[in-house]
């Protein structure tokens, strides 16, 4: 099946099998390997990307469902080689260790930025419900998201 979509602002056309998962399309066809696969039951959130501006788990979206959509992956976030403020806050707050969950964490947290009211820690923790990390205990991730929200 033919699909055409925009990925990180660039138009992409491809022929895909209907069952191809968006995450495999991004990773293997487009070589955007920053989006990771951490589970097979849609729990871990490592594969989170933005689809038309909303965070989704790309392991649970078919590439054909993304036909005509606008996709942003972690690679699309750091413009011109400069870290996005959220990425910078992750480094500053030591919010990553092995780095495997990190792209998903960042893409999920991005939805919290730019709101009128800075979320409190409880709200941030709730917003990370769809993302698992096994390294950090989340504390510094929460701090990084809070820091970025305060600055945005």
């Amino acid at each position, binding site marked *: 099946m033919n699909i055409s979509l925009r990925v990180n602002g660039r138009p992409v056309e491809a022929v895909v099998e209907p069952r191809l998962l968006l995450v495999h399309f991004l990773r293997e066809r487009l070589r955007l*390997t920053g989006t*990771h696969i951490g589970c097979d*039951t849609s729990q871990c959130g490592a594969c989170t990307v933005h689809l038309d501006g909303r965070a989704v788990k790309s392991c649970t979206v078919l590439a054909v469902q993304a036909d005509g959509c606008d996709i942003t992956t972690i690679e699309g976030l750091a413009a011109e080689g400069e870290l996005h403020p959220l990425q910078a806050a992750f*480094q500053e707050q030591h919010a*990553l260790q092995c*780095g495997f969950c*990190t792209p998903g964490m960042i893409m999920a947290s991005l939805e919290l930025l730019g709101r009128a009211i800075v979320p409190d820690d409880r709200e941030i923790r709730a917003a*990370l419900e769809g993302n698992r990390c*096994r390294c950090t205990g989340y504390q510094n991730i929460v701090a990084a998201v809070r820091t970025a929200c305060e600055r945005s």
Partner: protein
Amino acid sequence: MRRDAPPDLIGARVPRVEDPRLLAGRGAYVDDLQLPGMLQLDILRSPHAHARICELDVSMARALPGVVAVYTGRDLAQFLKPVPSAGGMQGFNAPPHHVLAVDRVRFVGEGVAAVLAQDRYIARDARELINVTYDVLPAVTDPGVALTPQAPVLHDDIGSNRAFELRIGNDTQAALAASERIISGRFINQRVIPGPMETRGAVAHFEPWEGRLTVWLSTQAPHLMKREFARYLDFPEHRLRVVAPDVGGAFGAKNNPYAEELLAAALSLKHGVPLKWIEERSEHMLATSHARAQAVEVHAGVRADGTVQALHYRLTADMGAYYHAITHIGPMMTAALMTGAYRIAHAATDIISVFTNATPTDPYRGFGRAEATYFIERTMDLIARELGLDVLEVRRRNLIRPEEFPCTTPTGHVHESGNFQLCLDRALERFDYEGTRREQARLRAAGRYLGIGIATHAWRAGFPSVPGGKGYVTSGWEKSTVSIDAAGKIRVVIGTSPHGQGVVTTTAQIVAQQFGLLPQDVRVIHGDTDAVAQGNGTMGSRSLVVGGSATLLAAQQVRAKAIRLAAHLLQIDPRQVVLESACFRDAGNSQRGIALTEVAAHAFAGPRDLPDGMEPCLEAAVLFEPANFTTCFGTHVCAVEVDVQTGAAAIRRYIAIDDAGRAINPTLVEGQIHGGLAQGIGQALMEGASYDSAGQPLAASLLDYATPKASDLPHFEVELTETPSTVNPLGARGIGEAGAIGAPPAVVNAVLDALAPLGVRHLDMPLTPQRVWRAIQEARA
């Protein structure tokens, strides 16, 4: 006397140099690697815990377009040996563990057939087309049951499910008999799944014309793997290259040479093509090592004042169906550290290790030591309760005092140094122990159940070599090479293989400090056996303690040589040279000096331009071998409130005071503690890899196996003390496992303290809401 003052990088909160590429999505984990013509390997796994394979028909799978080959266990046994296990320990009767099961499966998830196909979609389809008929056998997953005469026996050649038995300790019988009172209990440290976010995976690439095999492996120990893979494959080690690319967490579960990984390498050799194997999460839950799975029957001989006179454990350790690399070490480590932070004159553990129809166990953060700490810290609470004493008082009475170090325990461990009281005092002060006890009483009067839990933990890290050991993980040394290029920048090659610990940054800090450079002037190379000639790996909190010490010593040697050279160029005595901010100055004339860049460039000159006997280049390689383990210690205190209607336990406050020995980068140390706490709290409250009576795993995906999410955890209050270790030049103790070790007993003690007024006396982890509620009902009945 210190004549120069480098910028204070030791103890500085330097941001990690590892981060930018990982943040930008430019990390390179094993599944990110794509090679031309690469095939995909997929494994069909047993759905049964114990069964005979009657028929295995792979013809339909072989016929699927895009499938290159399909192998059964029997096919592979023609040309592959069993998987190495139990570290080649002498006297260990390790049953053969085939790469894929031959005729009989012994746990759910054991490999049965392997598919090699053009891509992962085809491989997965082919797996579906393999027909297996099983003759299901009775299974046993409970180690206690496995020891009974009626139990099905896993390995016919051994004749029973006893893996090994061992006694560690001194005489306890007489001491127990002479004790004023014996207090007994039974504690279980349940089977859990380490569960790094990245599952296992391998890419193997044999290049026949080069005679070279490269294996990219999600591993924590590329050098150990290189040695094991070479031996297993009978492949010349000098032509084998193992690369640990970015590794998405390991926690002890990635230092075993696994069947699928060896198979990937073997099939790349056989087919002469690159191939990839990536484990799915649901496979990971079954096929990657589980951990802990120990139970003890405790007998403690005590005096009425709480002094512990003697301690005996009968420890049952669940090996799973086979040994992995160091499965057998777990219970030995538990036994060696059974006395925890306490002075107990008589202590011994009788270990019985058992095979069961379950996933093999192996290390997980806190290996053996988390179990030991849980058992002794639960025992201390039990003693306090039985004697009607405060849990704090019992601990204080038995803690090893600062003046008692070095302190040899009855199980043969030497605590090199420490100050256990320091952490305890600081924890209680910050927690406001007395005030919280009053708060607890007030809440109880209002029908709310708050509990306080304490764990004073002491264990060991950074293992030394095992005398006479030739097997797996018996070398305790680590190597580091520091070299300065002609522009005065530094390259450090280290034998450990960091994957989240931040060792690249701490290594850069240690080295930069020696030369008055900045961390970004230092590049750290690791994880590729072609780039790093010798090493062991990252495990047992040894990266900084052992590897970092090698780095410090190497940097110091290079520094000394650079100073000699600078003195030569300045025509002064080396003792007159002051090294500051990458510049060598004449202490007698502050106007005279020479930059490190100039000295570095000069170091490449011919020997005739160098001081007598000096070799060109500023480089040193040091192999550091610790004389003993470091002693690691701390105190954790937490307050937990239990909703007695639902049984849900919520941590209100968690304070961890841990001794780092020397914290090179406190931010990274705290991060390590946070992560360990999350895993420890997960074990205490949520996680458990349990099986039903047929040996079916009950929590075989992340839909049923609960690892903590952000909303499950409190804000941790973490503080470090620094009591330098005496066994390494850095003074570091190894901090990576403290959280996972301290948290389970602290949390369980707190929940039981909360429920004490309701008459609940015992609970086994995980303290899920259902289990807690059930205990309350039973206590009420």
